[in-house]
């Protein structure tokens, strides 16, 4: 029966949902620090995975070393985006800044297609390909890696934002920018940290998913949009909401694919996005009106 497969659908939903969650949190961090939407977020996902594939397969680096270098590479691209294309237009209207991120993402995609070509490549799994049996559901080892590392990343992020001075300062910038300036927080530096952090999260997502779905120069677009939908679903700017939104979106997608048709899987994300925007623009956890006093 179809319902026997429910655990299976839930598991694969949580797996892709974890990826969406990581991307969504990246959207939130940049939004909180700057008030803008970074539409190049998906490119960090693609870059992280593509750099990782190059480093392990073309240069023969070990997984951990390549992982660290790929994340660092994506962070540098994030810092570049913040310093040069956005930095040069700092005083402009926010809409212009958002459009710059759209332009930047097109440029990155173009550069990626020139550098890596247009064919999809796969990353080798972190551990053996042999799947594990969980009750009557099957889970790949890579999916376990995804669930585990996403949880670890979100936990670390929580500790960073609540227990370290810099993390608290970034939240303070989001809460009251002028107040942050007045207590001596170097706001420009916090914005840089936010871009680097978002890029790192996006790249992590890409590296985690690449062994399952493969990666190519334009795969960041769809993953970015899914992450964006998840962030809206959770209440844009709300970090825990973004995590919940990502997981929920993944599960709903997986259930729709299983019980209705996988042809509509991608459409569902955008249907949800539209419904949230119509019915409850503040998302599941958003309280924007309360915050802006």
């Amino acid at each position, binding site marked *: 029966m179809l319902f026997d497969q429910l655990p299976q659908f839930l598991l694969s939903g949580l797996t892709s949902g974890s990826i969406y969650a990581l991307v969504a949190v990246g959207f939130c961090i940049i939004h909180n620090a700057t008030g803008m939407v970074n539409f190049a977020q998906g490119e960090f996902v693609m870059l992280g995975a593509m750099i990782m594939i190059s480093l392990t397969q073309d240069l023969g680096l070990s997984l951990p070393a390549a992982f660290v270098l790929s994340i660092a590479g994506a962070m540098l691209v994030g810092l570049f985006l913040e310093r040069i294309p956005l930095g040069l237009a700092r005083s402009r209207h926010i809409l212009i800044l958002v459009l710059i991120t759209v332009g930047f993402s097109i440029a990155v995609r173009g550069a990626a297609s020139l550098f890596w070509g247009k064919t999809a490549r796969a990353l080798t799994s972190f551990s053996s390909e042999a799947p594990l049996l969980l009750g009557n559901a099957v889970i790949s080892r890579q999916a376990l890696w995804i669930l585990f590392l996403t949880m670890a990343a979100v936990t670390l992020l929580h500790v960073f934002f609540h227990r370290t*001075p810099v993390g*608290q*300062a970034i*939240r*303070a910038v989001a*809460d*009251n920018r*002028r*107040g*942050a*300036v*007045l*207590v*001596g*927080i*170097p*706001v420009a530096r916090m914005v840089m940290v936010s871009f680097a952090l978002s890029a790192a999260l996006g790249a992590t997502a890409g590296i985690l998913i690449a062994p399952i779905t493969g990666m190519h120069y334009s795969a960041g677009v769809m993953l970015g949009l899914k992450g964006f939908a998840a962030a809206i679903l959770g209440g844009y700017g709300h970090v825990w909401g973004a995590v919940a939104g990502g997981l929920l979106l993944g599960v709903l997608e997986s259930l729709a694919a299983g019980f209705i048709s996988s042809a509509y899987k991608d459409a569902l994300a955008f249907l949800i996005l539209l419904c949230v925007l119509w019915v409850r623009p503040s998302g599941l956890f958003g309280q924007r009106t*309360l*915050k802006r*006093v």
Partner: protein
Amino acid sequence: MLRIRNLHAGYDGIAVLHGVSLHVNNGETVCLVGANGAGKSTLLQALSGLIRPLSGELTFEGYDVRRLPAHRIVELGLVQVAEARQLFPSMSVRENLHLGAFALRGRRNAVLIKENKARLLELFPVLGQRLDQRAATLSGGEQQMLAIARALMAAPRLLVLDEPSFGLAPLVVKEIFRTLDILKEQGLTILLVEQNAVAALRVSQRAYVLQAGRLILSGHPRDLEGDDEFRRAYLGRDYKAKWER
């Protein structure tokens, strides 16, 4: 300590301040009185590096404030309790206090920060009972106390207060000014900007009066009280009665 000479400042190239000169000496409490729109906030924003002056000198402890980014000014010890308090509303009282000490972080100041916090919670016991509450849930008076406490967490050399009495009930205002008295006695240098001239003059050793972007009077509070024009404009007709009460 603070020296301002012939300062012109404003927004988008349009001057609001037309050549203001004033100074604050170490250990003094100085107040700056002025009506709405006189340019008080413009002056304070220039002090904290939020706007860049058009011309004139602005030095703190010998440093040229005009060239420093806002966070460096705080690190030097010029700390402001701004208009509308500028707290972090969705963060806890504890986090607001810790962020106040951001400028001191990582310089082997952990002990100093801890002592500072303990001293402040003694000064504002009500904050101690609310450490885990979000700042937005505090009453207006408590928020003002938190704003002052947060500024003091940076261990300022000069504390600048922008209308600490604004929008508060008389009893709360009294308490705020009582606190300022204590801080003053502890030797803190204070620049107090107020519309509430009565209360401000009472705690100050010197006063300046700002009107339409220019300083029109300065001197000892007693001398200002003796000035007919000042009395009419800032202290009101029932001033004398209030003062004696």
